[in-house]
């Protein structure tokens, strides 16, 4: 009956999104008088989960699961859910979890709701709030099935510490050859760079930068802040920056704590994609730029003078605060 979360890990560490899931799950479990169970895959040190209210960890260890495979991972998560008699399965909004969640929902004959941004409004009937229309609206969705899968939007709930005594056990689900119909041949990953998905802070720039040769200051600002770099759609379309940096409605969504938009006027599609960020700072020469209407803080000024100054001041701030 307990609530099951799929706790993702990377390089032997439980990811922050998993701790957010645990925080969310604990609140729901408390309101329903049940406990929280986490399933982890090939991760030996799960102790951080205990600090966020996870009562039991089920660890699955199998060499065949060394690389992510949506079908195989969905299969073992579903088997764990069935074994535990789980009614509610929670997953994050990481690329991998978005990939496997629909497969889990089909196997468990569960209603699946993605982009959930708040605790359930009620648990009987089961109703949750999610974003829709690319962050231009919310909708309250009711799930009618006995088993439910919820995808929790990144950075929507936050971390809530709640230390408990956690039990760990192992589980060896059955793997089918059919789980491995596709083979990963190669993974190209830039190491040592903060990804937009994981970033607490995102520094983003647009056509106001006038050309790709001027991105040095954007990258430096990102480095000072420990941030990921991003860009607007026109900038990626004309090839100044790679597509992987394009954020907005048809690019990557951003839900960071701080989003700094430099030389981006703020087209409705761009704002839709980044609006889930908690705090937005806009730096733009044009005081009429639509982005100022949705920003928390704004600087009307030329990026070419403001950004270098900001870098120097932030460096001084960081060294006096460390």
């Amino acid at each position, binding site marked *: 009956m307990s609530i099951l979360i799929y706790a993702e890990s990377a390089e032997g560490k439980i990811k922050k999104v998993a701790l957010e899931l645990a925080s969310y799950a604990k609140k729901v479990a408390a309101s329903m008088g049940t406990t929280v169970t986490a399933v982890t895959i090939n991760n030996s040190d799960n102790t951080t989960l205990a600090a966020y209210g996870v009562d039991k960890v089920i660890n699955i260890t199998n060499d065949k699961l060394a690389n992510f495979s*949506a*079908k195989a991972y969905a299969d073992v998560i579903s088997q764990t859910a069935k074994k535990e008699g789980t009614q509610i399965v929670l997953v994050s909004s990481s*690329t*991998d979890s*978005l*990939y496997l*969640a*629909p*497969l889990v929902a*089909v*196997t468990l004959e569960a*209603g*699946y*709701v993605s*982009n959930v941004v708040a605790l359930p409004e009620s648990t009987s009937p089961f*109703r949750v709030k999610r974003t*829709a229309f690319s962050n231009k*609206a*919310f*909708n*309250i*969705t*009711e*799930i*009618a*099935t006995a088993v439910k899968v919820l995808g929790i939007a990144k950075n929507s709930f936050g971390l809530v510490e709640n230390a408990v005594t956690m039990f760990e056990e192992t589980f060896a689900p059955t793997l089918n050859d059919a789980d491995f119909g*596709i*083979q*990963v041949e190669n*993974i*190209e*990953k*830039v190491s040592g760079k903060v990804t937009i*998905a*994981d970033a607490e802070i995102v520094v983003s720039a647009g056509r106001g930068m006038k050309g790709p040769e001027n991105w040095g200051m954007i990258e430096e600002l990102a480095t000072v802040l420990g941030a990921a770099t991003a860009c607007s759609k026109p900038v990626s*379309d004309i090839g100044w920056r790679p*597509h992987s940096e394009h954020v907005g409605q*048809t690019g990557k969504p951003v839900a960071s704590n*701080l989003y700094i938009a430099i030389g981006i006027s703020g087209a*409705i599609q761009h704002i*839709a994609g980044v*609006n889930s960020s908690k*705090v937005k*700072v*806009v730096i733009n020469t044009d005081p009429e730029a639509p982005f*100022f*209407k949705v920003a*928390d*803080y*704004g*600087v*009307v000024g*030329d990026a070419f003078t*403001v950004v270098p*100054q*900001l870098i120097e*001041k*932030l460096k001084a*701030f960081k060294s006096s*605060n460390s």
Partner: protein
Amino acid sequence: MKILVCISHVPDTTSKINFINGDSEFDTNGVQFVINPNDEFGLTRAIWFKEQQGANVTVVNVGGPDAEATLRKALAIGADEAIRVNANPTDGMFVAKQLAEVVKNGHYDLIIAGKESLDYNGGMVPGMIAGLLGYNFVNACVGIDINGNEAKVTREIDGGKEIISAGLPLIIGGQKGLVEEKDLRIPNMRGIMMARTKVLTIIEPTGDASSTKAIKFEKPAAKTAVKLVSADNLDELINLLHNEAKVI
């Protein structure tokens, strides 16, 4: 090679979003509908397969008669035929079940659906079709080449990409990268004329009711006015971000 491209009929990305009937329904008044952008990248890639490798391209939508204009546009861009499942697309699982039936009956080698639609943003339909049929599935797909019965697919992952090989039949959740923005096609007059005579089959839905239901909609709370900081006083910006917003 037979390709099925699943098309959502969604409000244009510049649309103002409003609701009617006690915030229970999207207000379509004055809204321009388009091919869902993630689907359009997939459709264009499918047309390339047709032109370069001789594929047959079918487009399908689950929706009402108003979606036919969007299907006709896909035909004008170059798809060979269209199917409309005559039903209100109530939730992702319902749509996936309808599409799985179409896939089963049509014996497609490649099924392309956008990784998410820009109206409900469920992001679940391609995965659910794959789950229902047991087909190979790659989500967040930014590149695909097919040689014989083997596909070489690129998946976007957090911080990079993954190169995958997969046998057909295959379902992909597509997005920008399958083709670029500049590759998207605007229907020309010849395409529009030809689309008029192409076959658009209407079939009735099968099966179950939805497992989830959108009860009501809300718009985000109005934003408080921006705090402007002078470009000569960036210390104040740092102060606000540190002490007020607490984000640095």
